[in-house]
């Protein structure tokens, strides 16, 4: 095999282009990082792409002094709650889709397929109306409930596809032993579906963590602000203090970077499965 590969002529055009694109991708990320380390007073004096002459963490300090910890905590609560509930209700529904003998399961699956095509933007005005009517406006629950709803279709789709691979005989033997549906779900389905749950969980966490429209429309005060919205308001609040704004950007991406390092395969396969909705 190795020999055959060597016989292939290297893809020079592709390689050149890949390295060029690498530069395009890395430059802004490098810029975020070095600027976040640049003292405020040096921002207007130094070359923006040069390593800071006096690197310091004062920009991070200014961000943390401006309630960033609270926004971070809000994001953690919203993301964890949304993903946890999404996974629980979706695995239950996926089990029904796979096990149902009548058309109900198939129809449920069709609705999920259609649901993937609904853009959040299109539903945002009625969602806002609903949230106001429910008295949830400007609470974290206002972000969690719609986030779950819009995560369900894709999660259901991926979990259903995964559960279809479980051999029928496993279900049958458990049923022979007199296991209830709930017991089969907890003892058989959930343990077997763990890789799919991890994949789709990491993917949905990324989506909720970075979501912007729900927080923009459904919350207002600083006490319910989540990170993406805080970046936007930092931009307005700090204005000319670009190092602080970019320090906030670095802090906002750290959890996702950690997830990427720890669960790269799950994230990548989740994204290709999710079609980058």
């Amino acid at each position, binding site marked *: 095999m190795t020999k055959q*590969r060597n*016989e292939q002529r290297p*893809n020079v055009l*592709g390689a050149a*282009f890949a390295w060029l*694109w690498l530069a395009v*991708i*890395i*430059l*802004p*990320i490098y810029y*975020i990082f070095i*600027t976040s380390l640049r003292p405020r007073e040096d921002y207007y004096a130094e070359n*923006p*792409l040069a390593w800071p002459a006096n690197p310091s963490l004062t920009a991070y300090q200014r961000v943390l002094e401006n309630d960033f910890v609270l926004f971070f905590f809000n994001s953690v609560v919203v993301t964890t709650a949304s993903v946890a*509930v999404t996974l629980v*209700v979706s695995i*239950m*529904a996926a089990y*029904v889709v796979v096990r149902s003998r009548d058309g109900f399961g198939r129809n449920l699956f069709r609705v999920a*397929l259609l649901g993937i*095509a*609904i*853009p*959040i*933007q299109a*539903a945002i*005005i*009625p*969602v*806002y109306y609903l949230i106001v009517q429910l008295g949830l406006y400007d609470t974290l629950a206002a972000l969690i409930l*719609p986030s*779950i*709803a*819009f995560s369900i*279709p894709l999660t259901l*789709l991926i979990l259903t*596809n995964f559960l279809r691979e479980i051999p029928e005989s496993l279900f049958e033997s458990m049923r022979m032993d007199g296991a209830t549906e709930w017991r089969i*779900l907890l003892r058989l389905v959930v343990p077997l579906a763990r890789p799919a749950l991890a994949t789709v969980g990491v993917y949905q966490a*990324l989506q909720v963590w*970075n979501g*912007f*429209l729900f927080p923009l429309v459904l919350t207002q005060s600083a006490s319910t602000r989540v990170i*993406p919205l805080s970046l*936007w308001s930092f931009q307005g609040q700090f204005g000319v203090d*670009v190092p602080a*704004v*970019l320090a906030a*950007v670095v802090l*906002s*991406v750290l959890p996702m970077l950690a997830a*990427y390092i720890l669960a*790269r395969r799950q994230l990548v*396969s989740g*994204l*290709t*499965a*999710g*079609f*980058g909705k």
Partner: protein
Amino acid sequence: MAAPALILFGVFAIVPLFGVAALSFVHWDGLGAITWAGFDNWTAAANDPVSRGALWLTVKLTVLCVLFQAPVSLLLGVFLAGRQRYRSLLATLFFLPLLFSSAAVAITFTALLDPNFGAGSALDIAVLSQNWLGDPQLALYVVVFVIGWCFIPFHTLIYQAGTRQIPKELYEAARMDGAGAVQQFFLITLPMLKYTIVTSTTLMTVGSLTYFDLIFVLTGGGPGNATRVLPLDMYLTGFRSYDMGQASVLALVLVAVGLAVSLGLNRITGASRMDSRSEGS
């Protein structure tokens, strides 16, 4: 057992979808009383030059995004599918933009493209020191580029996965017949990627209809209305001009176009194919 998922999805996704249709026939400022409007909002939206401009801009943005992203993703994806030495490292780094929120990306590029303190001034090249986001002629192209920066990694992944599924034997046979690398690309890789190309391009198209947060933070629709695409027009009409009725009309236009494109994808590729693809990689 399916009830919790159905209820949550029904209340916060399906009901709103019908709700937006209902709201398109009422006057509502977002707080006060809701009054019947008949077709007022529809005629108002159809005659609104800003909304008509937004629709045209959305089409233009979509075409530009596909023209920019599709060839770049295809080339990169095919390259990354190969067994080159730095391939896995490159693939790891290419993924990084997908970790950033749209708000973070928009803020970064706002600073990076600043005419006085951005990268252009660093390199001291006059062409690069333009007021990228302040010039109505340039802003849309900057938006297209930044969107590409965010989403090309994702489409590259799709192309990489698609290319890896092409049977190796096809290439061996082609080499035996004396086909060069370029011929192999056009005679094997490209035709075999047909479905991948359709899928990726459809996703780009549907995605382009809904870009909101990135453009909102990057330009706010400006300068003037130069980047005020449909989703942005909808948000500004509804939540800034407090005309929820007319905004609902715009939302429905979004849904209609999005569903039409998605169903087109299903028609061309077949829903079953979509299922099997989602297990892949």
